């Protein structure tokens, strides 16, 4: 979003006008959604987080002092939300064995198979995305955060280091390691896949 339009959108939103908020959502919504999706690996969670972020935006924007760096401010909120979300998910995680039985004595594997939609072309085309999610899932949270903030938040390494609360050298080392790991899993090399 161009600086002048961004400033106008922020002023309008700070004055309590829905138009301003909508302009911000229109400009940053897709990138925020992408960030949430790649961080959580689930469309449903990404949508929930995007909805929650819009509410936080309404609450917090009046305290925001615009000095040309709106993205780091916005993505800092988004990164904190993802961390909270992942922490909550870790606490809730329950492992169910498919070799077990349900309350009626039916094998769970059969019940699950009956509920799974048949594979179609879209799923095959989405294999890349699945592989990417798997690869991102293998990275530790801090490394994944660096890569995603860099891409979706378009932030400098210094800004990411501030958000992560880590030294700049550590952030760079994570980025280098993480990108290398993704390249290995995704199977692309030197800019060509």
């Amino acid at each position: 979003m161009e600086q002048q339009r961004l400033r106008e959108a922020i002023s309008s939103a700070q004055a309590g006008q829905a138009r301003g908020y909508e302009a911000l959502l229109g400009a940053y919504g897709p990138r925020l959604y992408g960030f949430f999706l790649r961080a959580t690996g689930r469309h449903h969670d990404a949508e929930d987080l995007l909805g929650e972020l819009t509410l936080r935006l309404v609450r917090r924007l009046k305290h925001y002092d615009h000095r040309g760096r709106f993205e780091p401010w916005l993505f800092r909120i988004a990164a904190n939300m993802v961390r909270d979300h992942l922490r909550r998910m870790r606490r809730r995680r329950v492992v169910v064995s498919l070799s077990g039985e349900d309350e009626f004595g039916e094998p769970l594997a059969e019940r699950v198979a009956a509920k799974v939609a048949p594979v179609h072309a879209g799923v095959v085309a989405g294999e890349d995305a699945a592989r990417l999610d798997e690869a991102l899932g293998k990275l530790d949270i801090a490394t994944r955060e660096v890569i995603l903030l860099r891409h979706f938040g378009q932030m400098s390494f210094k800004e990411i280091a501030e958000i992560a609360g880590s030294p700049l050298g550590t952030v760079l080392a994570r980025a280098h390691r993480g990108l290398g790991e993704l390249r290995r899993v995704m199977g692309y090399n030197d800019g060509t896949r």
Partner: protein
Amino acid sequence: MELDEQQYERIGRYLDGEAVELSADELTVAEQICTEEASLGFVLDAALPKAAADRARRRLRVQVLRRRRRVWAIGNTAIAAAAAAVLIASALWFQFPSDSPPAAGQPAGKSVRLELPAVPQTQTEVEIDMLAEELNELTEGIRIVSAETCEDGDLESLEWELDNFWLEELESFELDSLRF
């Protein structure tokens, strides 16, 4: 290629646009990071589904509207409280005039009061009771305004939940009908 923390820091500053002179190894890693970031960009991007964008926009509008109403409610309560305070202050002022210094050629306030016939104690108590009653009524009025605001908030919240409930129901219905 193994680099230490300081070397990585130099690469970070270089990639952030600072004029840093890098060694051959550091430059190789910096270029590697740039290339990999560029390659990964296309894979990472994800389109925001229109339905999700619409829902987020609607949620945003509701939140902005709710916030605006809350500001109005707070403003109204503040005005009511200020009006009550002014009313009470004027009532007290008329009831118990202040001992202001007398104007030229006029007797002092205190002496005027002394010249008035003594007010029986019981009558003053009755007037104080009436004032207290007025004060209570005003306080009650403010309380009712606040309570109404809360009810409005609760109703809005219920409406919002209901809206979401039907939205989710409709979505799951549509998905089911597509699947079977």
